[in-house]
């Protein structure tokens, strides 16, 4: 009985993904992201304090140069609670040509709280308003991984 109570107490605090592959993204989030329904969207949640995000963003930017803008849109979401710090980080990256996609600032962290990723960076591929795939944490050669998925979805 004691172990059961202990296990239940631990389970009560466990977080969970809000969206998994196949799940539809809610209309409010899609509107906030200003997503074009006809395109496949690569959604990248990042923050300045996340070391792996700094490595991933340039890779996603190179991927952005290899995609057809009429079929694929890359959108970033900066979850930094300070919009000023978020802008400074993005400007720093843009100055280095390491960031070339549109970024939505989420200082109140409402968007990310809807998606509830269990780690950072968090990448979602969204097609027809539904999550086609997601990648959480540092992934080696993430641009090539996403490129393969976009090809499989017929967007490349």
């Amino acid at each position: 009985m004691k172990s059961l109570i202990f296990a239940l107490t631990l389970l009560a605090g466990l977080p969970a993904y809000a969206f998994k592959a196949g799940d539809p993204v809610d209309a409010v989030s899609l509107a906030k992201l200003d997503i074009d329904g006809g395109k496949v969207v690569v959604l990248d949640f990042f923050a300045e304090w996340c070391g792996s995000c700094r490595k991933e963003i340039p890779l996603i930017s190179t991927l952005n140069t290899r995609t057809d803008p009429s079929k694929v849109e890359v959108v970033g979401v900066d979850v930094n609670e300070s919009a000023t710090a978020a802008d400074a980080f993005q400007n720093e990256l843009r100055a280095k040509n390491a960031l070339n996609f549109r970024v939505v600032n989420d200082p109140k962290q409402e968007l990310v709280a809807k998606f509830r990723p269990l780690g950072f960076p968090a990448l979602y591929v969204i097609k027809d308003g539904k999550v086609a795939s997601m990648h959480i944490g540092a992934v080696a050669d993430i641009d090539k991984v996403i490129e393969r998925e976009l090809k499989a979805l017929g967007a490349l």
Partner: protein
Amino acid sequence: MKPGVAVLLVLGLSACQSVMPWQKAALAQDTMKPAGPVAALSKLDLHVYTSKEAVKGGTGIGGGGCGCN
């Protein structure tokens, strides 16, 4: 007391609060490291730990607290 009531009571008493990955900005700061923001102190701290415990490694992940792999 019935077991079910006891379980609910214990769950209600839990003060644990999960910190979500996107809320780890403060935790990711250098000052949150066990040895502080000075890299030299961190190295010294690790050296003492290695000497005392005769073990090495497993002291953290890249990115510092962002939940990255």
